[in-house]
């Protein structure tokens, strides 16, 4: 199979950047305290894996961040998907709740971090709660928009075939709204990961955000870079997983 020319070009960019990085650092054009060389990073990474960071194994930092994300996001989806679908189907409920969501949505969730700390302290609850709220906004808004955009003919076709309202909701409206719901899930996942890192930067004892912030405070520049790279790779993995989920659930769209 011939490789796709665009893929080749993209890998070329990655290779060129790595080479440039390696070049400027080994030639001494940049101070290692500002930008460590890839070789130094690799060595430091091995040390981190062996010794951990701040008396905790690297895996523990990773798991802390992921656990906060998944608990907050999971609760957000669990509450948000049914709530959004119900809001889309039920006009009065939408009228009552939509002002709250419309007001909250444009506020970056990170702006609530100080308030969360004030109310709930710097423990796990404030972080998980923040992620829960952010995930909830995105999922509710997308799910309710999805229900409201279901073509009238589809609902009428089902009524015409003799389905009850409950059957129509479950077997027609839910599926027709699913693409919107999954867009919400995708956005909520990406946002949750961004928020957990931000929350950990400000107040945490473990987690990748904590690692990056703490390493910067003690001028451990390689650790800062390693933390950022791991955060990026996990973000990318989450995106790949949600996209694969979307593709398999929506295969009938034929895209």
């Amino acid at each position: 199979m011939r490789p796709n020319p665009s893929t080749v070009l993209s890998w070329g960019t990655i290779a060129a950047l790595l080479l440039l990085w390696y070049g400027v650092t080994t030639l001494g054009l940049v101070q290692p305290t500002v930008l460590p060389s890839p070789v130094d990073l690799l060595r430091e990474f091995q040390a981190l894996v062996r010794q951990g960071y701040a008396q905790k194994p690297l895996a523990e930092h990773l798991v802390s961040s992921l656990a906060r994300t998944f608990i907050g996001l999971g609760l957000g989806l669990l509450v948000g998907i049914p709530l959004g679908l119900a809001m889309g189907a039920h006009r009065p409920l939408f009228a009552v709740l939509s002002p709250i969501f419309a007001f909250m949505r444009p506020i970056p969730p990170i702006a609530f971090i100080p308030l969360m700390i004030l109310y709930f302290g710097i423990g796990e609850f404030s972080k998980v709660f923040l992620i829960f709220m952010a995930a909830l906004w995105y999922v509710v808004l997308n799910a309710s928009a999805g229900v409201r955009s279901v073509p009238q003919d589809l609902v009428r076709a089902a009524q015409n075939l003799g389905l009850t309202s409950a059957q129509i909701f479950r077997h027609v409206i839910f599926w027709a709204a699913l693409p919107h719901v999954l867009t919400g899930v995708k956005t909520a996942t990406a946002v949750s990961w961004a928020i957990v890192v931000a929350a950990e930067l400000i107040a945490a004892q473990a987690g990748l955000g904590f690692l990056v912030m703490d390493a910067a405070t003690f001028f451990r520049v390689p650790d800062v870079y390693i933390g950022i790279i791991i955060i990026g790779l996990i973000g990318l993995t989450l995106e790949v997983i949600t996209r694969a989920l979307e593709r398999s659930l929506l295969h009938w769209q034929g895209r």
Partner: protein
Amino acid sequence: MTARIELQGVGKVFPPLHRGQAPVTALEDVNLAIAEREIVAVLGPSGCGKTTLLNLIAGFDQPTSGSIRVDGRPLTRPGPDRSLVFQSPALFSWLTVQENVTFGPRFRGEPPAEYLPRARDLIRAVGLDGWEHHYPYQLSGGMRQRVQLVRALVNRPAVLLMDEPFGALDAQTRARMQELLLQVWELDRPTVLLVTHDVEEAIFLSHRLYVLTRAPGRVKFALTVPFAAPRSLALTGSAEFAALKYSVLKSLWEEMP
């Protein structure tokens, strides 16, 4: 003999969309009667209330005046006894052809042993065998409308309602679908009410046709189409067909603003 569908003095007035506007009268004093096993076409200029008429008979909407009776009983709500074929394919795109076709009987709790053979026969009759496990996105426009037709007919409806069912298809596909409809109709011979703006389609398919006036829609005249069954596409090339088409077109032009 009671008519299968009977409309008496049916009117429909829609409340204004915006404050300060006048209410819109879509239909006014419509009287029509359709007998069992009859194919009737309703023709009219666009905006004359044809689709409103169909929505009323389907039970999606209530008339503001007059009465609609099916088999002598007043209408209460939508149901599979009056199966509707939409202009848009309106298929459930997350389901296969087979699942779309059996959607109604399955959720009404019919035993599969009854509806599966029916579905299989109809799928074969419209030439979709081999496509049962494909999804709507994999089908052409004409095939989607055939799926819709089978999804309606599998309920063995007393009445088949069609809203410009071939309006979105190209001319060749449309002609082929019209022939196919007549073939499939022979299987069960349901009463058909077809709403269209295509004069040729109305004459080719129907036993009788009604022409509506421009909005508010009223019956301008009714006409018995004299051509015997079985009809084939060759009929549309005959002089008699052309003469009838011209006279109906002329009366429709009078209704154009």
